[in-house]
């Protein structure tokens, strides 16, 4: 057994099997286990939300916007300036990715635990038997009953209506993934049309891909996707991060309008962030004392 299995897969498989023993239903166990994992990772999610919020606020910060505009043709300088602002405001752009990265092993581990538990060949059963901790009674656990509602959790799911197999879970996975990506999208991408276009394409591509996985692979995985999507949306809603307006298909994108709650009212009153692009190019930007001081410093000689 490798370290990954020992630290991640084995404990997760045992917890999943233990829940199955308690509730006597593998489908319910997958649901409960997914919710449990989601609950345990709430601190990570909260951190992710906080970072995301800070980044979104920054995107609407007039000072940041001006810098973006000013150095749009000088990538190197732009990067330097961005770093400076991040430092000034105490924001780490990667801190929103870090919780997500930390969750990845949990997600993969959970998936592998589900797959392991659904062993359906003697070799797979054998592998499963070896993963089970001694204090759990193997003979009572193996095999796992894969049947849940109309589904065989070990097979791709289809609900047969008049002989036609409808992939209900795959559709649910697509819908919940789409809802999740739309409703949880940042309020504003800071008016960057390329970012908006990318986000829009990702909002469709990801749900399509998730739906494809659910269509092609076992129902147990699809069930996990659905519950995971729904619980993530619930957690974000409780954190006040759901943007239900995004779900309106008739809503027109207002990429230049910043979100009201994050914009400094004094700046709105000054109208500085309403300056049209061409005009803002001509308008000299008043540098902050700190950045002026930086510019006054002599450049270090390169070795």
């Amino acid at each position, binding site marked *: 057994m490798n370290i990954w299995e020992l630290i991640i897969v084995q404990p997760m498989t045992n917890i999943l099997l233990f829940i199955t023993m308690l509730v006597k239903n593998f489908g319910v166990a997958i649901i409960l286990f997914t919710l449990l994992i989601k609950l345990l990772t709430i601190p990570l999610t909260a951190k992710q939300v906080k970072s995301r919020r800070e980044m979104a606020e920054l995107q609407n910060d007039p000072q940041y916007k001006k810098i973006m505009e000013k150095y749009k043709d000088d990538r190197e300088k732009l990067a330097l300036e961005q770093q400076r602002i991040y430092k000034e405001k105490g924001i780490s752009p990667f801190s929103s990715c870090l919780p997500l990265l930390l969750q990845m092993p949990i997600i993969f581990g959970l998936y592998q635990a589900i*797959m392991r538990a*659904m*062993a359906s*060949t*003697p070799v797979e059963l*054998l592998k499963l038997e070896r993963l089970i901790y001694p204090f759990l009674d193997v*003979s009572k656990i*193996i095999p796992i009953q894969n049947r849940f509602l109309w589904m065989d959790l070990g097979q791709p799911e289809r609900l047969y209506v008049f002989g036609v197999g409808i992939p209900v879970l795959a559709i649910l996975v697509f819908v919940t993934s789409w809802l999740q990506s739309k409703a949880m999208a940042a309020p504003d991408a800071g008016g960057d049309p390329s970012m908006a276009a990318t986000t829009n394409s990702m909002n469709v591509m990801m749900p399509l*891909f998730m739906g494809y996985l659910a269509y092609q692979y076992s129902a147990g995985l699809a069930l996990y996707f659905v519950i995971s999507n729904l619980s993530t949306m619930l957690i974000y809603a409780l954190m006040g991060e759901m943007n239900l307006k995004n779900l309106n298909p008739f809503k027109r994108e207002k990429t230049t309008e910043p979100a009201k709650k994050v914009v400094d009212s004094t700046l709105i009153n000054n109208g500085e962030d309403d300056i049209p692009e061409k005009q803002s190019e001509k308008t000299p930007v008043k540098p902050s004392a700190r950045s002026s001081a930086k510019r006054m410093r002599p450049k270090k000689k390169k070795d």
Partner: protein
Amino acid sequence: MKKQIFKLVLLAVISLILLSGCAVGPIAQSTPGLSANDTHVFVSAQSKVYKIDLETGMEVWQYPVDKTRMVAYAPVLLDGEDLIFGDMFNKLYRLNIDNPQQKVWEFLDAKGWYQAKVAQADGIIVAPNTDRNVYGINANDGTLKWTHEDNFAFISEPVIIGEAVVISSQDHEILWLDLQTGEEIDALSMQGAVIASPFYLEETGLIYVGSLGNEFIAIDANTHQVKWRYDGSIEKLSGIWARPIYLQGQLIFNDDLGNIVSVDPKTGAENWVLIEQGKMFAGLVAVNEDSFLVAAENGSVRAFDINRKPLLQFEIEKATIYTTPIVTDNLIIIAPMGAKYLLYAYPIEITGLPQWTFPPEK
């Protein structure tokens, strides 16, 4: 802007491919299936079934010849001019033994994998499937005669005794089905999932089987009642994955911890116990009238006489053995996993040196 979108989309596609690599369903992997007649050995492994000459170890044919997708591990059933086996694409085939391209029929009704060897009697093929069904199929034309549905996947070879099909169920049961209709005649509860196939001994009129619930029992084939239950010197048997052997009036079985037990088949009284090193999932195999072979998971193969005196020991390098070896008139065939070769054929005199391997050593 377009470049940036392209980069992001490319990154997304790569991530999705990686994700999809992790997102596989239950793995279609099992242990090689072995069968043999007087002249040939047949092995089902991964995407092929091979017919191999017993004398030389040379391939006679492989099926499929073309790029037809197939994953097969179930041992083939040899029936005169034909062979019958199922694959993991839910198909059951009856092919001509000399020319497998000459398909007699295909049975396509199942929705799950064929893991076990099918049984045949009275013109009916009994085929267990992982879709929780046992199928009764007309041997001549491959049409469905009956279906018996249960709660768990069927992965063990059935035994046909008279008009009854006796089959192990993962639902902690042994089932008796009517051969003609598939209806359940009787069921006997066990303490754990039953993976091992039942073993019927006409001489005693008893069916012997072990389960993953630490038990080994003998069942009266007529009354379907437990005749005796192993209660010997091993306080707690481990899981039993294979059927026992009958040798010189002794019934010998093994559990997965390497305990080999000889009992009186009529009473269950213990003759002796041999505690072997290494886990053992493959069954025992009788080499001749007074010796048997043990293949441990770690690739170690040992031979003992009927009084458990060690005769020989050899090892197959890097091998993991789960398939019970088979013995022909003059060869012992072993099909390990992970080893250099798919098959190792040893002379029955047990020298520890293979007579041939398949594929042949270059």
